[in-house]
């Protein structure tokens, strides 16, 4: 547990996260309107989403399926009976004057997420609940000086609100939680986890207390739109609260906004009137009753999730826990790795994927799905190493060529003549030439200067343009020098 050092001693930070994850589905939660991001304003709006008189919501089965799938992926209890409630408040981008949400009985109950911390430890973070709700529209205050524009494309889009227990104690844990949650959602295909486009949004609850003391008063920091900002916001907010308390002040329960420019938080509205949302069951919707067999059916379609995949990578491929963790963070990396590793030296495959490939992708700013080097190509290249066509060193050049041109490794080997020389005669000739040209060094070596061995290797490699098989080279050279 890591604590904050204050003037009056140590403080413990208590963090809970509420994540709004936009459900991947073609249609909205209660209307048939489309959900694509970035469409022209007010082009993806049905009269239901615009709150027109007499319009009624009808639950989108696909969204329920996605929520249940997510619940199962979070090892959570699926509530076979849940209820939609109305959360009433007035705002220009909330056309009905209420948001349909789930208040007392969410579709998903308690679950958990395992975090792998950088120090190798694991932390289990409780999930309190997951409920379905509709998104509001968007108010655009910057289009014109004296009016606000409203875009209802987002109005009615299905969200999963995933609420954690206040189980996190550091900004790092909160960051790890968000990354792990995002990874699970992406594996499940229930949310794309894109925080920049707003398809995953996060509210952060932070409080501080003396270790062992009851929970302190919390502040909620709204809509922090990247993992990094979440961590910055927590660090700032925790220190702010400690300062206030150590100065003899009190923490007021309030909603605060994160200012990403300054890295600070500030109260959201000065006259934040205590909202009374007047929740009550939506009479337009019947309780959501799930058939246990249907839930079982969804369970059977669950993909292998990161934790299980990681264990399997360790078990089946002999990878270290750390390497397996890196590879499974994104399903695409894991799939890529497996395509490369299948039937090959898995550790070698892991090293190439995490080393040269990730390095190249980083440099190019590309995602693994758009990698210039296909998994099949990388696999072929590893085969060329295995059959002795390429040395490790030559392979680096070939790989660079593949990144650059997208060509197959065999083609690059042919075209650039990068085939490893294993012909002992050819290597012997090269060694002889080097030894003959460096008689003084040979004498020095033979009188005990062992370190010169590397020099000879280098000279021979240079003479063969790096193509000499290192093992063969070493063996013959040693013999000749000994001779």
């Amino acid at each position, binding site marked *: 547990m890591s604590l904050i050092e204050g003037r009056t001693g140590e403080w413990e930070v208590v963090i809970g996260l509420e994540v709004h994850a936009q459900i991947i589905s073609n249609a909205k939660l209660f209307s048939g309107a489309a959900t694509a991001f970035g469409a022209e304003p007010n082009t993806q709006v049905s*009269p239901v989403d615009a709150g027109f*008189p*007499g319009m009624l919501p*009808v639950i989108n089965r696909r969204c329920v399926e996605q929520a249940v799938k997510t619940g199962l992926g979070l090892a959570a209890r699926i509530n076979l009976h849940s209820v939609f409630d109305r959360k*009433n408040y007035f705002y*220009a981008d909330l056309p009905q004057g*209420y948001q349909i949400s789930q208040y007392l009985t969410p579709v998903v109950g308690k679950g958990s997420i395992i975090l792998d911390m950088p120090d190798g430890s694991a932390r289990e973070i409780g999930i309190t609940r997951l409920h379905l709700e509709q998104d509001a529209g968007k108010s655009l205050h910057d289009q014109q000086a004296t009016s606000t524009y409203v875009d209802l494309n987002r109005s009615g889009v299905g969200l999963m609100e995933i609420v954690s227990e206040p189980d996190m104690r550091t900004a790092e844990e909160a960051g790890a939680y968000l990354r792990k949650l995002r990874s699970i959602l992406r594996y499940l295909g229930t949310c794309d986890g894109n925080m920049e486009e707003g398809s995953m949004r996060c509210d952060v609850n932070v409080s501080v207390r003396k270790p062992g003391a009851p929970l302190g008063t919390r502040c909620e920091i709204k809509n922090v739109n990247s993992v990094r900002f979440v961590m910055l916001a927590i660090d700032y907010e925790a220190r702010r609260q400690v300062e206030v308390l150590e100065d003899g002040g009190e923490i007021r329960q309030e909603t605060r906004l994160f200012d990403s420019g300054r890295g600070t938080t500030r109260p959201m509205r000065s006259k934040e009137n205590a909202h009374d949302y*007047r929740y009550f069951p939506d009479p*337009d919707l019947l309780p959501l009753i799930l058939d246990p067999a249907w839930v079982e059916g969804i369970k059977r379609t669950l993909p292998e999730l990161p934790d299980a995949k990681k264990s399997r990578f360790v078990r089946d491929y002999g990878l270290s826990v750390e390497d397996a963790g890196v590879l499974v963070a994104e399903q695409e990396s894991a799939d890529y790795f497996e395509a490369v590793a299948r039937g090959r030296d898995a550790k070698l495959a892991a090293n190439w994927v995490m080393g040269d490939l990730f390095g190249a992708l980083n440099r190019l700013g590309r995602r693994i799905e758009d990698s210039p080097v296909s998994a099949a190509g990388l696999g072929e290249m590893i085969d060329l190493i295995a059959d002795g066509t390429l040395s490790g060193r030559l392979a680096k050049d070939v790989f660079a060529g593949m990144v650059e041109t997208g060509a197959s490794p065999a083609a690059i080997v042919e075209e650039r003549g990068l085939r490893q020389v294993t012909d002992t005669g050819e290597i012997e000739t090269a060694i002889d030439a080097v030894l003959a040209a460096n008689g003084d060094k040979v004498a020095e070596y033979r009188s005990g200067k062992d370190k010169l061995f590397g020099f000879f290797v280098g000279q021979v490699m240079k003479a063969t343009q790096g193509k000499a098989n290192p093992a063969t080279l070493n063996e013959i050279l040693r013999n000749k020098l000994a001779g």
Partner: protein
Amino acid sequence: MTNLTDLTIAEARDGLAAKRFTARELTAAHVAAVEAVRPLNAFITETPELALAQAESSDARLLRGEARPLEGLPLAIKDLFCTKEVLTTAASHILDGFKPPYESTVTQNLWDAGAVMLGKLNLDEFAMGSSTTTSFYGPTESPWRRDGDNRALVPGGSSGGSAAAVAARAALGATGTDTGGSIRQPASFVGIVGLKPTYGRCSRWGTIAFASSLDQAGPMTRSVRDAAIMLKAMAGHDPKDSTSAPQAVPDFEAALSGDIRGLKIGIPKEYRVDGMKREIEALWQRGIDWIKDAGAEPVEISLPMTKYALATYYIIAPAEASSNLARYDGVRFGLRVPGKTLDEMYELTRAEGFGAEVQRRILIGTYVLSAGYYDAYYLKAQRVRTLIARDFAEAYKQVECILTPTTPSTAFAIGEKSDDPIAMYLNDVFTVPVNLAGLPGISVPAGLGEDGLPLGLQVIGRAFDEATILRVAGVIERAAGFTARPQFLAGRS
């Protein structure tokens, strides 16, 4: 030729089939009748061109022998149903100029059955009221007058425009909606038949919501048979309304066998409320005698939670309304009164756009849902509602339907109860429990009160058993032989 506006739906249907007159003639007579009843202020919007165009196409179908169940029959629509490109107001200022881009399922079903639309009918604002006096478009007058008293009377409400238009022979039938009695009470007040179907029988999609868990559309007609014909066309499962029931719609007209022998009919003792007028008591007794004469067996039953129904209703209905009416905010449609801030625009728009009764109910509803009051009011009301439904379920172990008066009195004069909301709310005492339990109920004219005004009897049925209450109502209708006519009749005065 017979007076075309005096026909029932069944007679008009048969007359068209027998080519005794054309749909155009029938519609033209009704278009003229709609004009003639203007003094009653029953219509908010008249749509004569649309009606005549529909009638032309009905005539073409009739000629081709492709008549649908309501082919060419002119009906009028309560202005709570959204009608595509036709002004739809809910009788509220706040919906100024609102022309929906969609058609409600119930009206669409009627047009698909061949019906002709005469126009949109007045109502209490957002269907909140029992008198049709809270409309932004002014009160509707009943076509009836008390004996020896020429004061204008209310037609009841909230479907008062529907009641007045049908009673005055300006439409063969009309749609109504019933949240706490809004079909049955006005039907009783003007001497016509009004049927509130089982909750979920008719789709609520495209009908402007008052209280979603109680609202139900139904027919208002001059005969029980007409109600059966019209309900058949209006009803049906609608995937666009999650609360619409996936139930087959029977042939209600075929169920009108007139045979109720052996049927056990409950007479709830709790409906003998304190201070009930003797004439109501007597009417009820006559009804009991009629069904007994027809071979049914009246059985005294107990519905002990009845006394809590009105209080329960006046918590649940306003609670839902306060939320349902939040969308009228001046942002997207209807009236907008500009303000310096968003909040000010809301306040000015809603203060000007909503009338006093609507504002009263929004306030009550907001209050009972507020933190700290929710459990004491809304939650408790929901529990009582469950008990009320259980009362009926218990009774239906003994009986197949229930007979009660529809209203505790005959119609009152415009303005008579407007300063006393409680007295006004008491109008619904016999009708409200039916909505709370989601059951079907029908009001059928059974006689006249001492003041010469119509009175109805109510038959309450089991869920989705409209067929039985229609059959019982048919027997009462025949026994009562109600032939009284309002003083104001289209084309007659």
